[in-house]
């Protein structure tokens, strides 16, 4: 039983092909961007606002607050990246409830792609914030002996990000598939609901962990009063942050 959307090829030409993962991703992109465009083209700044605008503001404000809480920094620079991670994953996971739709996050290719984005984004943000030299010093912190472990940590957490999301979503789909063959009524619905919750939680975890990695890479920019607590953040030890518990639950 293979339910990875990668295996569903829709169009093929030489080595290029378009599979369901890409197609569904485009669908989500159209949905998110189109919906946003429809709502934000008529934004008002009066006291009374349309409820759709209100919903968008709630979402954006919620993401900003989460970023601010995790990173103790202004969310302006990270919002597009982290927010899009969350919105893409959560909408992909929630869309799984639509019959015939296979969540692109259930594909290891997608989760790998997202993890690679995070893998690249973390040093980028770190270098932008602190400069190359200062960022690279993180790898020999606290002693140069830690350098190989820190580098291994960089890769392992990227792989962990990819596999965690993929595993959760894929397993949810597989469990529902198995249950459908065993008990066609009632139980699959419960599992579907559970899948929705898991999907939202995984989206949250993915986005928050990404933010934690980025925050640890930009630790020098943190608010001075929080420095002692935040100084324990380093690229190789994200579990010491305030989201370590969430990470453990996953």
């Amino acid at each position, binding site marked *: 039983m293979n339910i990875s959307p990668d295996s569903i090829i829709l169009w093929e030409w030489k080595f*290029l092909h378009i599979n369901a*993962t890409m197609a569904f991703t485009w669908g989500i*992109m159209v949905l998110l961007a189109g919906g946003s465009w429809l709502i*934000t083209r008529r934004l008002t700044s009066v006291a009374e606002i349309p409820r759709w605008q209100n919903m*968008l503001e709630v979402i954006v*404000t919620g993401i900003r607050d989460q970023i601010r809480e995790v990173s103790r920094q202004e969310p302006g620079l990270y919002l*597009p990246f982290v927010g*899009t991670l969350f919105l893409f994953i959560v909408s992909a996971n929630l869309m799984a409830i639509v019959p015939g739709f296979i969540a692109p996050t259930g594909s290891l290719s997608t989760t*790998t792609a997202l993890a690679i*984005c995070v893998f690249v984004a973390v040093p980028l943000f770190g270098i932008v914030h602190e400069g190359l030299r200062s960022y690279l010093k993180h790898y020999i912190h606290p002693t140069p002996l830690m350098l190989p472990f820190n580098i291994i940590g960089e890769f392992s957490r990227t792989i962990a990000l990819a596999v965690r999301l993929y595993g959760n979503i894929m397993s949810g789909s597989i469990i529902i598939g198995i249950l459908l063959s065993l008990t066609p009524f009632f139980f699959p619905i419960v599992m579907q609901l559970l899948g929705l919750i898991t999907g939202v939680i995984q989206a949250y975890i993915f986005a928050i962990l990404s933010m934690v990695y980025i925050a640890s890479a930009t630790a020098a920019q943190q608010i001075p009063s929080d420095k002692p607590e935040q100084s324990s953040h380093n690229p190789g030890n994200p579990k010491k942050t305030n989201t370590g518990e969430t990470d453990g639950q996953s």
Partner: protein
Amino acid sequence: MDIDWLTVFAQIVNFLVLVWLLQHFLYRPVIDAMDRREKRIADRLEEAQQREQTATQKARLYENKRFELEQSSKQRLQEAETAAQQHRVKLLEQSRDEIQQQRDQWQQQLQQEQQDYLRALRKNSVQAIQQTGRHILADLADTELEAQIIAVFLKRLTNMDDDLRQKLQNSASRVDISSAFDLDDATQNLITQIIHQQLNESATVKYKQSSDLVCGILLKAGDYQVSWNLENHLQMLDEQLQNALNGGTVSDA
């Protein structure tokens, strides 16, 4: 669990495109709108605060003005009351004075009228008594009375004091005798003789009858005279009556 690297690459591109799209269509517009609204709300709050401050200041100002107005109106009312009181007192005094003046005037007038009336009464009474006396004496006048009058006159002429006699002698070159009744020759001779004895031997004596004398006889020499006349007595009566009536008037007033 295989990874399709083409898909991975495509998904990376897709993700980056989605980041751009959402940044363009979602985050930036929404954050801008929120910032605008926040700014607007902040502006409005500030404006409201300023208005409130202005309102508070104005309210305080008006409260002060109202208080001042109240005070001034109270003061003015008090002043007006005082002025009215003073005016009332003044008017009362004025009217009291006027009444007093009018009363005095009226009393004076009344007194004057009383006096005038009494004076007229007196005059009339005296005149009436005088006329009555005159009528009585005129009715009673006869030869015997005339002889008696002449006798009294002659006695008075004979017994006059020395001072008067001396003055008469000095101016007795001409002596006029006036009488109310006609003197016969014997009487005229007797009188002339006594004058010649008492005053001056060479004195010229002239006789005439005068109706002015009610009942009597008068000797006149220069500025001096000797007489017996009922008019004198009537005048004395008049004076006494006047005195009596005046005394009565005074006591009445």
